[in-house]
């Protein structure tokens, strides 16, 4: 080992952290990890793409309770499905990090607990919005017609849902020791959520009891809002309700996630 001097004079006044800078730092760390993993980028979008290619054509010409085309009904649902399944499973990564001691090391640094969470979930939001762009491009090639503002509003919903679900996913995963326990837990949440929120087909087609039940699922409001936006209707009650639910869900989830990060491992 080198005999050189390690300069260790304590800093007189170590600088304080700022939430923005901390979040950017954590975001860039995880973004670099994602960019290294080409498989994550490509295969993440595969499932909704398969629905688009093999399921979408079945709906062509069928009346889906909407004034628009079947693509304007299906694509918003697939985008939210991408976000729902993708972000719900992000917790796996933090179980691995926890077992490597990475979470604990970061919690001993002065970085704010909110930044530790925000940096991660913003990376996830960027990832799934990027995959969403690929999906929409494929849908355009298959026959989707939707106004640009509506498509952009859709991406905003995807981003907000990802922020929410990824926060909750990390929060739950921090309290789980093994990936084997986490998988069934996530499946138990995502499948009913997908079926009850009308991601594949509008719940207005469902019998009354199922339609009523679906109103208890927050994602129902998001998908209804996105479908309106894809039709070019931006100031409808559905869009406003969807925005309110998405923002409330994001605020609640980030609060829960930050609390869990503060206590993780305690």
């Amino acid at each position, binding site marked *: *080992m*080198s005999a*050189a*001097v*390690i*300069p*260790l*004079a*304590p*800093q007189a006044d*170590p*600088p*304080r*952290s700022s939430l923005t*800078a*901390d979040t950017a*730092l954590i975001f860039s*760390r995880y973004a*670099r*990890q994602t960019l*290294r993993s080409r498989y994550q980028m490509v295969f993440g979008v595969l499932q909704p793409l398969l629905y688009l290619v093999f399921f979408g054509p079945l709906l062509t010409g069928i009346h889906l309770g909407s004034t628009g085309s079947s693509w304007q009904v299906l694509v918003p649902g697939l985008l939210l499905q991408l976000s729902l399944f993708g972000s719900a499973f992000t917790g796996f990564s933090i179980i691995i*990090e926890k*077992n*490597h*001691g*990475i979470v*604990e*090391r*970061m*919690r*001993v*640094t*002065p*970085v704010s607990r909110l930044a530790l969470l925000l940096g991660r979930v913003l990376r996830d939001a960027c990832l799934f919005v990027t995959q969403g762009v690929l999906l929409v491009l494929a849908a355009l090639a298959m026959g989707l017609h939707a106004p640009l503002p509506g498509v952009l509003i859709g991406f905003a919903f995807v981003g907000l849902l990802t922020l929410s679900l990824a926060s909750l996913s990390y929060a739950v995963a921090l309290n789980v020791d093994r990936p084997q326990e986490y998988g069934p837990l996530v499946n138990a949440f995502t499948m009913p959520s997908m079926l009850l929120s009308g991601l594949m087909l509008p719940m207005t087609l469902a019998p009354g009891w199922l339609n009523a039940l679906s109103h208890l699922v927050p994602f129902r409001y998001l998908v209804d809002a996105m479908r309106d936006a894809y039709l070019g209707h931006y100031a409808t009650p559905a869009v406003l309700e969807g925005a309110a639910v998405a923002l409330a869900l994001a605020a609640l989830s980030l609060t829960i996630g930050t609390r869990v990060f503060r206590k993780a*491992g*305690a």
Partner: protein
Amino acid sequence: MALIETSGLTRTFRTKRGPVHAVRGIDLTVPAGEILGFLGPNGAGKTTTLRMLTTLLPPTGGTARVVGCDLAADPGAVRRRIGYVAQSSGVDPHTSVLEELVTQARLYRLSKADALARAEELLHDLDLTELAERRTGALSGGQRRRLDIAMALTHRPALLFLDEPTTGLDPRSRAELWQLVRRLRDEHGTTVFLTTHYLDEADALADRIVVVDRGVISAEGTPTALKARYGSSAGATLQDAFLAITGHDFTAETVPRPTRSRV
């Protein structure tokens, strides 16, 4: 100046079977520049104490000041002033050594240029320069431990917590780490709070040893003083003293065997 001062430090866990009193009122003073060996059998409360002092776990009672900052009132200030090397490595196995060091320095608000300069400085001083571009997952146990210590030093902390730093290391790597810890103290006055399962390590490194058992301090003193006070014969070892203090056969109960493969 004392870098750690605790008074009645307590941690009680609420469980379904009732409260568990993991730490029951620890009074501790660690002066600047000291290497303190913090020992105890499994479940004695040493990890809980260390986690409280490093802000990972809030105390349920008592007070503590760490590097002059109140642990409960300003844990952020404590975090800015301490370094912590956990039992598990805490580095991403897919990231390069240099990238991990730079990111760690940036977490302490060093600018990009300063973080890079500091990382290169530490790589040189801890004999890791040739490994700068290597993935941390490809490092040997001893190399990874040196990286862990380098990570903990990026912000030049006055107080370094080492949680069983040589567990799983081969004898040569252990000896190198001992040498490094001594250098930190001797050349730079770094205060070290060391938990270890190896009594020979505590004997060789620590200026003073504190033994905890069942959540309270059961003995403290220099290794020589403990051996003289609790050993049954003139040639008593720290192992003999530990057995007399706690009634536990420390080695048989808790010491993991050193191996080359595990950090």
